[in-house]
């Protein structure tokens, strides 16, 4: 299995606070890797380093063998999709304009953009009637579907999801989880998924990466984590959420 993303000795600190100790991590192509851990454990920091929203203090990050540098980051970002909890949709643009923004910006034809848009409506099960609406006219679940469409517009090699379902109510959340998983499978998508919810991690993950205090504590399947904990913290974390984990 080949690694699409490779982090080597990547670290980040804010003043005296260490957000991420020197860290190594490979993200397998075509798989869903879930970063999980308590608040402030560094999982979002790691994700934001990959998309270049923050710069690492040391180490290197490679995407498909190309080291990410300030010079090429903007081009690489167009090969990465990014969805956040708040959706990040631009309120002054309609659903359609939000989704096709980048495609049009890099000069894809209107026809090409329109075809891809219709494909994505199908894929994410978003009604085409919603395309002329503005983000404020959509429900939370609809907004996240649109956000996903925008992230997938340019057929990215890598999809980054930062607690994409965190703000949704349980029913909407469950239905979106199901849809997301189908989409990942159908596309053979490489996904890096951040959540603090163990049940969600188990549902999506090919590999779970458990983090604590700026370090990766253990990487493996849920069985690995349950039966062969690398650290007392692993068991502690899993037991704290056993209500759902045992389901």
């Amino acid at each position, binding site marked *: 299995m080949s690694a699409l993303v490779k982090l080597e000795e990547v670290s980040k600190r804010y003043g005296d606070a260490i957000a991420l100790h020197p860290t190594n991590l490979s993200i397998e192509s075509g798989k869903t890797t879930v970063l999980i851990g308590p608040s402030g454990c560094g999982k979002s920091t790691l994700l934001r380093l990959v*998309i*270049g*929203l923050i710069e690492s203090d040391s180490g290197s990050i490679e995407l498909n063998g190309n080291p990410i540098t300030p010079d090429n980051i*903007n*081009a*690489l*970002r*167009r090969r*990465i999709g*990014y969805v*956040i909890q*708040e*959706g*990040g*949709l*631009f*309120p*002054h*643009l*309609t*659903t*359609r*304009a939000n989704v*096709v*923004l*980048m495609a049009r*910006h890099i000069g894809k034809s*209107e026809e090409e953009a*329109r075809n891809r848009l*219709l494909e994505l409506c199908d894929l994410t099960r978003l009604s*085409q*009637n919603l*395309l*002329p609406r*503005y*983000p*404020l*006219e959509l429900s939370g679940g609809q907004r996240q579907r649109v956000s996903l469409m*925008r992230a997938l517009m340019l057929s990215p090699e890598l999809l980054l999801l930062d607690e994409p379902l965190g703000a949704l109510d349980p029913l909407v959340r469950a239905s979106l989880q199901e849809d997301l998983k189908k989409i990942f499978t159908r596309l053979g998508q490489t996904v890096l998924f951040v959540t603090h919810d163990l049940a969600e991690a188990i549902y999506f993950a090919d590999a779970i990466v458990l983090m604590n205090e700026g370090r990766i504590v253990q990487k493996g399947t849920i069985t690995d984590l349950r039966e062969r904990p690398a650290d007392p913290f692993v068991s502690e974390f899993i037991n704290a959420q056993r209500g759902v984990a045992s389901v």
Partner: protein
Amino acid sequence: MNQIRHAGTEETLESADDESRRSTQFSRFLVWIPAPLLFSCVSAFLIGSSSAATDVVIGSKKFTESYVLGEIAKRLLIDAGIPAEHRQGMGGTIILWQALRDGQIEAYPEYTGTIATEILKADSNVSLHEIRDSLEKLGIGITAPLGFNNTYALVMRRGDAHRLGVRTISDLRKYPDLKFGLTHEFLDREDGWRPLRERYALPQQNIIGIDHTLGYTALANGSIEVKDAYSTDAKIEENDLVVIEDDLQFFPKYEAVFLFRSSTRPDAIAALRRMEGRVDETRMIRLNAEAERTKDYAKAANLYFEGSARSNALDDSFPRKLARWTVRHLQLAGISLLLSIIVGIPLGIVASRGGAVGNVILGFAGVVQTVPSLALLALLVPLPFFGISLRTAIAALFLYGLLPIVRNTATGLQDIPRSLRESAVALGLDPIARLWKIYLPIASRSILSGIKTSAVINIGTATLAALIGAGGLGEPIISGLNLNDHVTILEGAIPAAVLALLVQWCFDLLDRVLIPKGLRL
């Protein structure tokens, strides 16, 4: 069934297209700003230069007699076939002298005493001959005296003077509690209040500075008891005042003359010289009284030409004057607003990034706002390139309009949630596209409200432009203040207020076009 659904989809996509086009309207609005600006600048330049190139411009100071003399001079020039323009009530001595030196005006009426002490900084008793020699070196010519001596004088109500037995200025020493209301110019002049007080050892402490015309009202209602006046002032008789005798001969002679640039066309100089020795004190008082009575300087000037052919100068009707004032007013406010937008938005963008530079920008714009508008005008006048001109007024208004735009642009951008900024970055938009397609449209409401504030401020402040001869709706306000004529003041004040409301209303409409619909939900 299938067909119907297909048709519906097409329609949805079409209208969606429309929406995305509309959303960049604000950005396109910004693109178009330079076009009208360029146009306005060119037209402003033409206004500024064309009048100077073809007409002989006469200036006058901000009081009745100067207005009247200016009108007479204009008539004389026009009757001699020379195109002439009269810029009324441009300000005080220093402003007029500066304008004459800079060539913004060709001539203006002045007084020998003022020339000696204020302009040449010499003793007030220098002879006319010496004055002529000194001015010649500066490239300025002087006519012979026009025939009357308008010296400074102190005046009181006739009743007060009788009751207190005040006949001479020396008598004032006995009444230290008298309230004096003096013009600002008299208070500051080298030959004004301070040396007068010293010469006569006057003990009064209760001295206030007041506008010349308002001073007469204050005198009439008893707010003040003594004020300065000009000896040919029509108000002296009109208000039943007496001139207190200058028993120590403190006030120098103030013989009226015209100053002109030596380079002025000879036939224009010859026309001005036709006033020499033609206006004695009685005649001047009569002309002044006529001007104050009719509130019309041109009519008063006509008296001078009694018996001669009627002037071919146009009698302006009120609607025409109003149109002229309003157009000029909109020019002043509009050009300065466009400049404020063009400079203010980029500064606001830089300021929104914070840091030392951002603080300096916001600090500078804030400080400019705290300078009183009148003082800002006065500060710009002596600078090269500015002087008494439309340019100066526009520059001052531009500086005034800067702060609301800079501040609103900066806060509008800073208020964009981090999640939206990061989404724009994460999508891979380059910095310019982020600003243009995302940040500025999202901040458009705040930016437009800053522009609206600037526009309304500019409409109000532009009335002050008339103080430096730049015209606009301030013109009737200032001459009304000068004539103590409320109707004339309202002729400027009401249209200015209406204009401000209209501008506000237009911007409210503009909001609906320029703020993307998605932000107005």
